[in-house]
């Protein structure tokens, strides 16, 4: 397993995350709705709005997962934050970065992952809107655009800026 890497802008990224005062806040309908919509649109058993804190990923909204956080080093979303673009893992069991990840070998038995980074205007990436399935899958260009659009809506909710979507 490859532990989730730490991005070069980690300090500024964490500052941007903390300034939003969103970590460890109660569930909010506006985020729950986006995540539920994503799960339904993609028939995904798990969908998350995941924020990458210093040592953990914390879920502001979640469908299909009982826990509200996991360790950062085993997180798929930690990899997406460094990738800076939508990370798609079609079959985690065949990917050397994730094949022996405890989230793959044990519950929730991740096989498919797609995470669209939550990027602020200053370039900081706070986490992802992600889809998880227990079977291998792929996404086409329309699927990726839909996931990206839902991600843009989540970022707009977080920042209060209803302008042009991120590229």
């Amino acid at each position, binding site marked *: 397993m490859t532990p989730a890497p730490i991005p070069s802008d980690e300090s500024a990224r964490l500052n941007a995350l903390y300034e939003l005062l969103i970590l460890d806040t109660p569930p909010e309908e506006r985020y729950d709705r986006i995540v539920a919509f994503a799960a339904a*649109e993609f028939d995904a058993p798990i969908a998350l709005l995941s924020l990458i804190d210093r040592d953990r990923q914390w879920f502001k909204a979640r469908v299909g997962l009982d826990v509200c956080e996991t360790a950062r080093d085993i997180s798929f979303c930690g990899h997406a934050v460094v990738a800076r673009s939508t990370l798609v893992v079609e079959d985690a069991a065949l990917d050397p970065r994730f094949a022996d990840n405890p989230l793959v070998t044990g519950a929730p038995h991740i096989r498919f992952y797609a995470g669209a980074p939550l990027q602020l205007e200053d370039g900081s990436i706070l986490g992802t809107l992600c889809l998880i399935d227990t079977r291998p899958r792929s996404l086409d260009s329309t699927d990726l655009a839909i996931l990206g659009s839902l991600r843009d*809506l989540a970022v707009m909710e977080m920042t209060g800026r209803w302008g042009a979507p991120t590229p």
Partner: protein
Amino acid sequence: VTPASGQVPRLLLVEPDSLVRRTVASVARSLSIADIREAGTYDTADLLLHSDAFDGLIIALTDDGRGIDLVEQLRAGEMESARDCPVVVMTGRCDESRVTALRALSVRRVILKPFKVKTVLESVAQLTNGQAT
């Protein structure tokens, strides 16, 4: 749908669910399928249809009949858009009487709720390619 050369078609999407509406419009724009104006209410749609010409209409129907009224006005040539422009409807029910009404209005496609955004986008793409039947 015959937009000016080099331009994507301009469509009006009438849908009360903001998440559906914004996602369809955003993805259609990002994939250069269509330039979609959004209306969250029939009142907004009425204003837009009377003030602007669109290459097609995608409209969610409610049981109060106002959506059908708008399509009837469009077909009667009372709007700025061409009276024969393609129309797709989204509806929670489609019994025989509604099918008859929609057929009389030359509706190109009926999408039953609950639907996926991807289904609506495929209909938009078919509309813009002139393939919807």
